[in-house]
Structures are given as C-alpha cells and as structure tokens.
C-alpha cells in the first residue's frame, strides 16, 4: 500500500540522452511536487501541479518538463541530460490545505530516484 511511488529508483545514463521519471500517489491528494536533492543533500522545489494545473515552476532549465496526466500522476521528462543533472529527484504530494490544528497539509515523499549522468 505504497503512498507515493516513483520509478525507477535508480537511473544511470549518458550525457545527451533523454529520460523520464514517473510518480504516482494513492493518497487522494490534489497537489504533487518535484524536488531536487543535490550532492550536498540540499533540497529545492522544481515544479508543482494542483489538480493537473502547473502552479509552481521554479528557475529550472527548460530541458526539464513535467507532465500530469491526472491528479494522481506526475512525471518528469529530462532532455539532453548533462553531468550537472546528477542528483536525487523526489516526488511528493499533499492536500493544498488541511484542517486548522489537525494538519492535513503535510507533504509525503516518494522514495526518490537517484539519477547518475556519465
């Protein structure tokens, strides 16, 4: 009963290739995210979708393109991979808001995809 799943968990590829990472959540959340964790473990938001609509698009090279076919799925496609794209990519999901004092707005993370570009 995995809540947020990502495939693949590991991805090794060569520079210049195009690759995709898939994410699915079964929590019934409306909002999904992509975060990047660099080699120093720093986590930064890349994109967010709310009910299939793009709501956050941080300063990310346009080689990265998210797609949300429905509110339970968010995929990340990366064109022309570069060495600097090597990182761990996390998918997450949440309700956009919760019940005051009772939470419900927390973000739940997938297991991450370690991308290595050689």
């Amino acid at each position: 009963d995995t809540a947020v799943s990502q495939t693949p968990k590991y991805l090794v590829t060569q520079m210049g290739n195009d690759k995709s990472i898939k994410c699915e959540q079964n929590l019934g959340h409306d909002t999904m995210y992509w975060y990047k964790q660099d080699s120093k473990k720093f986590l930064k938001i890349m994109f967010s979708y709310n009910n299939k609509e793009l709501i956050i698009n941080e300063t990310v090279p346009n080689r990265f393109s998210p797609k949300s076919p429905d509110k339970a799925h968010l995929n990340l496609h990366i064109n022309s991979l570069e060495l600097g794209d090597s990182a761990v990519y996390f998918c997450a999901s949440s309700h956009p808001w919760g019940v005051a004092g009772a939470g419900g707005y927390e973000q739940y993370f997938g297991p991450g995809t370690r991308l290595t570009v050689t």
Partner: protein
Amino acid sequence: AQTVTQSQPEMSVQEAETVTLSCTYDTSESDYYLFWYKQPPSRQMILVIRQEAYKQQNATENRFSVNFQKAAKSFSLKISDSQLGDAAMYFCAYRRLGGGSNYKLTFGKGTLLTVNP
C-alpha cells in the same frame, strides 16, 4: 524570500540521551507552517513533526518535541531517549499559508545526527 538556516551540520548523541537540533528561519509572514523531516540512509524523507505558527503550544510526537519561539523565529527539535534508529539527516522546512506557489517547502541544509551506542 524565506530562508531556513540549520547552523549545525553535524551532531552526535549517546543512545538514550537527549539531543536538540537548531533551526532558524526568516519570514515577514505572521502565519505559516514549520516541519522537521528525517532522511535515514535509505533516502526516504519521513515527516517527524509539524507546527502551525498560530499555535503557541509546542508540538510533540512521542519522543520528538519542538521548541517554537515565534518572536525569535526559532524552531528547534528535541529528541529524547535517542535510539540507534534516530540516526539520520534532519531537515527543517517552512511553508507559507495560502495557495499556489505558497505550497512549496523551503528546506534548511540539514543536520546529520549520529547516535552512538
């Protein structure tokens, strides 16, 4: 822009002892959310505890509790009776209220906690 600072890159604690991890943040907002996430070697990001800024009462979850000082913009995590399984990277995170781009989490750089047997 909001920033989150964790001033302790590494901390260590003896098993069964108590340790406190520090976090400060910068915001001009009056209401917001704060979180602590744990990332063990498995890489999974696990929510440890959350705090709504409008609540004066400090959040607690079993052995984990926070000391939320709103005026000082400080949000420290206390782990009591430390266990070997608590060894992990701990991240403090901030989220604004409201919709749209406010949903994103802003993370600190993390504190690596070692638990010694």
